[in-house]
């Protein structure tokens, strides 16, 4: 069980503490954080409520500039489009900047099977790619590793001459190796943080410069993005950019806020000759149709809910087994991948509500977890034994005397069981509780008994 892996827990705790400090500093740079959240919620609500209109506006402008837009209904269509494009244009090497959607549709294996070498260029993604594991966190993919583990990885997979675990040295090594890839690759694949409808551009927020290189040097630029990334106006970025940076990393703004609307224009010094935007649906339009949970599409993938979630802090990103971990992953995945298989994620929460309180676009994540639980029971996706237990519970709760008698019986039974020294054994109904905690108190009298006895008279 990951939460028992203390080394792992310590690394995560340190990472989270450092985020907490940075986040507070970032928040202090925004005069009215609640007003910022409100504004961001309004922008996304407007975008999602008129999704078709804004997406068409975006598409029109991109096409007018010589770009291509492909509407992919699902993962398969998206992957096939990119693979066919690459093989048709003789692509042998791809450089990729960070995109959770490409993780979601599992694009890299499709390209690799077609004989194309794919380089993840975001440092965290590069690291987990070498380890052949999925990203641990949607913003900091390799936060579960310490520098020693990364140095060893580089030594084994990249260059046996690597002899230091200093982060500066390791970054320089990665830069040296990836630079060759940037200049050799025929195709650059990026995601998009936002699609701007009125300007017809994609917006990418990055820090490393790898996304910049992927979208500047190779002759083909492909953007893979979810349809829900659309926003109405360029000016909306004036509040979305700082809020995304603050929630994601505690920065005032990310180093690069890149806007690209098409292939290079005549007279420009450089830039891709072909520009393709793949708009991925993959279950999003179904969520759009759900009036109760539609706001989940407002998510700007900042990662703040992961960072604050005590469950995530204890078990980490890989335990979820989904593309998107943390509270947003638990809420979203049943909609994208089916309630029966992924409902357990909505139950893996104490419903503390910290995620809702921190979400910069004010998605009430905790409430949606509860709704998913309700949806799961109504879809018959829970154990029948549990359904029976609650049927019996309900029967008792409607009958005060039965409730009182039931409570008395349970206390009596437990007292007998513990008196016989059977706590923690198979005969102890509280054995799961007692695994981590000393047994609950067993008072001889319930409150109602005491009330009747000597508290009732005022």
């Amino acid at each position, binding site marked *: 069980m990951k939460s028992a892996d203390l080394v792992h827990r310590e690394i995560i705790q340190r990472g989270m503490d450092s985020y907490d400090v940075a986040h507070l500093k970032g928040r202090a740079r925004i005069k009215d954080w609640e007003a910022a959240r409100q504004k961001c919620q309004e922008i996304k609500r407007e975008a999602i409520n008129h999704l078709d209109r804004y997406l068409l506006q975006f598409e029109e402008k991109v096409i007018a500039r010589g770009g291509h837009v492909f509407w992919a209904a699902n993962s398969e269509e998206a992957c096939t489009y990119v693979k066919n494009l690459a093989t048709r244009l003789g692509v042998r090497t791809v450089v990729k900047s960070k995109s959770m959607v490409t993780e979601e549709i599992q694009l890299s294996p499709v390209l690799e099977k077609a004989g194309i070498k794919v380089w993840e260029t975001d440092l965290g993604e590069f690291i987990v790619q070498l380890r052949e594991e999925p990203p641990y966190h949607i913003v900091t993919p390799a936060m579960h590793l310490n520098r020693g583990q990364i140095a060893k990885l580089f030594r084994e997979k990249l260059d046996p001459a690597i002899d230091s675990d200093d982060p500066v040295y390791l970054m320089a090594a990665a830069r040296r190796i990836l630079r060759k890839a940037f200049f050799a690759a025929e195709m650059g694949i990026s995601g998009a943080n936002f699609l701007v409808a009125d*300007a017809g551009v994609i917006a990418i927020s990055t820090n490393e410069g790898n996304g910049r290189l992927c979208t500047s040097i190779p002759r083909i630029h492909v953007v893979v993005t979810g349809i829900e990334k659309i926003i109405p106006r360029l000016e909306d970025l004036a509040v979305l950019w700082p809020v995304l940076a603050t929630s994601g990393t505690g920065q005032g703004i990310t180093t690069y806020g890149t806007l690209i609307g098409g292939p290079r224009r005549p007279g420009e010094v450089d830039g891709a000759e072909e520009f393709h935007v793949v708009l991925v649906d993959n279950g999003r339009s179904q969520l759009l149709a759900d009036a109760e949970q539609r706001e989940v599409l407002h998510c700007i993938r900042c990662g703040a809910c992961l960072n604050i979630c005590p469950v995530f802090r204890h078990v980490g990103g890989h335990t979820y087994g989904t593309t998107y971990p943390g509270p947003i992953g638990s809420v979203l995945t049943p909609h994208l991948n089916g309630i029966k298989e992924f409902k357990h994620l909505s139950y893996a929460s104490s419903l503390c509500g910290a995620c809702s309180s921190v979400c910069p676009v004010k998605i009430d994540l905790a409430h949606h977890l509860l709704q998913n639980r309700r949806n799961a029971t109504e879809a018959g996706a829970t154990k029948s034994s549990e359904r029976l237990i609650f049927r019996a519970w309900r029967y008792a709760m409607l009958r005060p005397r039965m409730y009182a008698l039931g409570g008395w019986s349970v206390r009596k039974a437990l007292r007998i069981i513990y008196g016989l020294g059977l706590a923690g054994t198979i005969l102890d109904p509280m054995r799961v509780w007692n695994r981590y905690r000393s047994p609950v108190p067993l008072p001889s009298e319930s409150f109602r008994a005491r009330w009747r006895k000597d508290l009732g008279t005022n």
Partner: protein
Amino acid sequence: MQSGQVIFDAINNPLERFQQECVGNLMECTLTADSAASARQLSKVLQSLPEGETFVQDDPTLRRLIELAAPARAIRWSSQGAPGEASQATVTLAEALIAQTGSILVTAACGGRGASVIAPCHIVYATVAQLVPDLATALSRVSQERKLDSNSFACVISGSSRTADIEKILVQGAHGPRRLVVVLQTAT
């Protein structure tokens, strides 16, 4: 923009705010009084760099500046093509400077996409007249002047490239420039 004023603090002294933000962004910002001083500053920065090609945006203003600075370095003008893989420095103009976040706004017209990311040192030559108070103003101007119709690319750059992917420790200089230098001339 109305809501921008509610959400962010008002910026009363843009120049001061820009300089403060540059410090926080790990950017270098030097104020110069005139083009002679700017040329001297440019020369100083270039001399501090290892041997190698300097890529410069082909623009009359920069042609004059380079002439004044007379650096003993190979110059590749943007009209000759994109910066090479081994470029040590790029020199460009900017569309605007943004005080709120300590940013420079560049477009494809400022020497192309690679000019602000390929070399380890990116030098921006700008004047105080180009300073706007906030992101809202800068983006609004981009919209009004239809910059994204005449340019396939624009970028708001707020510092040197960096990463915190290893143990959340900040490393300056990732795949992009390690140094972002702004030569900010007070008189036009």
